[in-house]
């Protein structure tokens, strides 16, 4: 079994074992097994990075086996510089999520842990497949565990949120399915991505394909104006669910743009780039403003996610390698930072059971250690130099200014809004005198929470100070992709 298969199936196997395992009386054993599963799954992804050859844009660790003959579908895996980091990120966040749910989840622990482990395997599958149908299978299958996670362990309005999540994203992916079948027919019976990349398509087909893929990926990212499901879902989802959703699941959409929309329909991508840029700018500026007026911390971070993902799509569609790398770096950074933000909110929520900004104030007085972490993550969220958040945003803004000064200038305003809503929230929640008895009674974070936040903080700092390992891996692949996109298929 290849390394990639191992990375996909290890967490799923552990998840299935957990499902078969017992009830809440054995919760302790279940938690430990889940942790072992998550850590092992993370460890098996490390050789991918260690053995990765940064000098080539070719797919590496390729596995190719026949799967469904009738459709000529292959079990075809491989990663390049664009996908490698997401495999690692997914496995890493999975470990954090298991730690985060350790004591918080007391009901149906085995199902909770299993859902996250299986989800993690499926998402790694999305990032490492080179077959269109296999991609679709993994992409869609992620909906099932997430639906259950939101619906079982979510907040008061969880059912509405679970349905909204499932149906919104299913709607998008079903249109993508038609696009996949169309490509399959056009290419004379192949689901192979490389074949599709080389396929010549007329302008009308390209436009149709572009919008079919757009339906799937824009909803997932989510781009304005199809982002409305995200705040609702974040508010209701349990902490771990929010973290995975923001850190990984949103990236599936952005990743899809790079793997499908751009290389398969390059002419349509150029033709409609103005639309993508306009929508991304709207997300960055307008949604940034929306984030500012939120009363609910999770909603605020959710809107901030939409704004940050706007940077990503903006970076992709200006067709400059700096912008594309910037978008990718931003995706990874946002994975760490937004995950950390949601987990921090979770820490507060577990103690006070409120996400309203107004029910807090002066938390720094009772939870100094925690407040220090939160400050650090808040700074990363506004893109302070030296943190992960800075690198990607800076690259995208630089590229945008190269592309068009005014677009660049508009993009840069996001830094101001980002700082405004993040710092304002930080001030209201953490600074000032202790406002009520709830806050007075708060206990500072324990060793488990410390570990979880420290891991993320280390990642954020490392990426901010020394982003070279990240950009090195992606440079060749990004250049290759841009070269491909620049050639007309008409």
């Amino acid at each position, binding site marked *: 079994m290849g390394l990639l298969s191992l990375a996909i199936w290890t967490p799923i196997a552990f998840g299935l074992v957990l*499902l078969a395992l017992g009830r809440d009386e054995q919760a302790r054993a279940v938690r430990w097994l889940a942790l072992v599963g998550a850590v092992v799954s993370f460890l098996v992804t490390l050789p991918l990075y260690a053995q990765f050859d940064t000098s080539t844009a070719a797919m590496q660790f390729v596995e190719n086996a*026949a*799967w*469904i*003959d*009738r*459709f000529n579908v292959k079990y075809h895996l491989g990663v390049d510089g664009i996908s490698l980091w997401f495999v690692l990120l997914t496995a890493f966040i999975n470990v954090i999520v298991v730690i985060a749910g350790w004591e918080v989840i007391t009901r*149906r622990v085995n*199902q909770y842990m299993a859902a996250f482990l299986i989800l993690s395997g499926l998402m790694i599958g999305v990032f490492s497949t080179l077959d269109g*149908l296999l991609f*679709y*299978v993994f992409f*869609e*299958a992620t*909906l*099932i565990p997430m*639906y*259950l996670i939101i*619906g*079982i362990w979510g907040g008061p309005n*969880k*059912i509405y949120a*679970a*349905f909204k999540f*499932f*149906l919104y994203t*299913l*709607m998008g992916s*079903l*249109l993508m*399915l*038609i696009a996949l*079948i*169309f490509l*399959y*027919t056009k290419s004379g019976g192949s689901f192979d991505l490389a074949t599709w990349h080389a396929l010549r398509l007329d302008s009308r087909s390209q436009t149709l394909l572009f919008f079919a893929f757009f339906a799937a990926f824009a909803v997932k990212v989510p781009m304005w104006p199809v982002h409305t499901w995200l705040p609702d879902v974040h508010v209701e989802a349990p902490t771990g669910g929010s973290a995975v959703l923001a850190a990984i699941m949103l990236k599936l959409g952005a990743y899809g743009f790079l793997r499908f929309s751009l290389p398969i329909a390059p002419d349509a991508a150029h033709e409609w780039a103005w639309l993508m840029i306009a929508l991304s700018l709207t997300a960055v500026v307008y949604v940034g403003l929306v984030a500012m007026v939120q009363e609910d911390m999770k909603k605020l971070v959710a809107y901030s996610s939409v704004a940050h993902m706007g940077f990503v799509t903006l970076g992709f569609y200006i067709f400059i390698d700096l912008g594309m790398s910037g978008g990718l770096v931003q995706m990874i950074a946002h994975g760490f930072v937004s995950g950390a933000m949601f987990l921090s909110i979770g820490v507060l929520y577990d103690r006070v059971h409120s996400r309203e900004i107004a029910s807090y104030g002066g938390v720094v007085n009772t939870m100094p250690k925690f407040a220090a972490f939160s400050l650090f993550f808040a700074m990363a969220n506004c893109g302070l130099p030296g943190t992960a958040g800075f690198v990607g945003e800076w690259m995208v803004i630089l590229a945008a200014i190269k592309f068009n000064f005014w677009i660049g200038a508009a993009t840069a305003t996001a830094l101001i809004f980002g700082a405004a809503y993040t710092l304002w929230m930080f001030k209201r929640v953490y600074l000032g005198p202790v406002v009520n008895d709830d806050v007075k009674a708060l206990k500072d974070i324990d060793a488990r929470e410390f570990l979880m936040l420290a891991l993320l903080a280390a990642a954020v700092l490392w990426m901010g100070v020394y982003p070279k390992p990240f950009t090195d891996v992606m440079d060749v692949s990004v250049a290759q992709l841009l070269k491909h996109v620049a050639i007309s298929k008409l």
Partner: protein
Amino acid sequence: MIDKISWIVALPDLVLLVMACVIALMDLGVKTALRGKTYVLTLATLAVVAYLQAERALSGATLYGFGNMVVSDAMGNWLKCFATIAVMVTLVYARGYSAHRGMLRGGELFTLSIFALLGMSVMISGNNLLVIYMGLELLTLSSYALVALRRDNATATEAAMKYFVLGAMASGFLLYGMSMVYGATGSLDITAIFKAIASGQIRHQVLVFGLVFIVAGLAFKLGAVPFHMWIPDVYQGAPTAITLMIGGAPKLAAFAMIMRLLVEGMLPLAMDWQQMLLMLSVGSLLVGNLAAIAQTNVKRMLAFSTISQMGFVLLGIMSGVVSGDSLTFTANAYSSAMFYVITYVLTTLASFGILLLLSQEGFESEEIADLAGLNQRSPLYAGVMAVCLLSLAGIPPLVGFYAKLAVLQALVASGQAFHLGIAVFAVLMSLIGAFYYLRVIKVMYFDEPITASSVVAPLDVRVVLCINGGLVLVLGLLPGGLLALCGNAIRQMLGT
């Protein structure tokens, strides 16, 4: 005199017939409420028959017997084999339920089931209009009696009445259409009809007139819109065990009947019947999915969902021939429909199996609300049910997804822009479908249970249910084998 070949062709069916009589006689002496001996003997018979059919299917030969009246080919034998297994599984699920409701006082459940299966077998292997019709009548007459098996229950009796009246009307349609075709072509033999039509000497008008009636009759039997109204009433009214009996295996036979009549018999008229099937399938997708949303009764909801699923099957059959030359596309289209029917039956068996399991001990699990909190009562059964529902909704990696994919692919492969539009429509309809399937999952997983009592099931039910639900998942991960099986069977039938 039965010649040697005829004997081979009909052997499994003859075994069924003889054993049906033996079991009926033996049952006279069985006294226990659970009818253990009858049950075991029935299952053993069916197992042997399924084996015989599978063996024939694997041999891959096409044989004609009784003066071309019956045919034994790979498609028919596989469908018969799966139908037999489906009836076996149905009986395993149904026994406890039926015993609690006094439906086992006589042994009719087992005898009638075997006769219904015999009807299906005859229908599937019929190569002659009258043989097909006879099989159909044997199946439906047994089904009417099965629905009425709970004599003291008003709703069941009412359902049987509705079923009988509408079913008889459908049979009338079908017979009328067959007589028109006979009148036009001068033969009842499917092969002869095909040759006559293909010769182009027959007056098109008369043929199409007969065709309309045949398609209407088929649509009635399959439950396609606008001939669907009996389905929800009968599904809801019949005892759940019987709902499964008439909603499971007979779908395979109905598919075979469509293939025999429309494809083997009247392929040259494809341009005509495809238009009709298109309208039927679009209507079924629309009405089935929209009406299912409003249902609070699970059986009724599943009935409407069946209507929409049959829409997909018809979509597969209609996307076969377009210009009349490419047999590969045609084979793909029909085999996708066959795959769809088989997986549909597999999924239906497990989902109704769960309903039967929950209906033990005098309690009818019919409302969606009755499934509340099933995950807390039994994570295993909730899991099986969830897998089935998600499969019906077409979510990967479950087998229902590949069924939908195969049909959509056949549709798109026909290369017409109009068909692409139909594919988008079908996909949007499955989005609506996902909503009501998800609602049931929501009830099972997110709601609190009404009773905390865990679900108990006898060992045989538990084992079969796990295998059944497991297959929905395993075939989803590895659908290649079954897809190839369907493809080969259809290619053999088309003679390519």
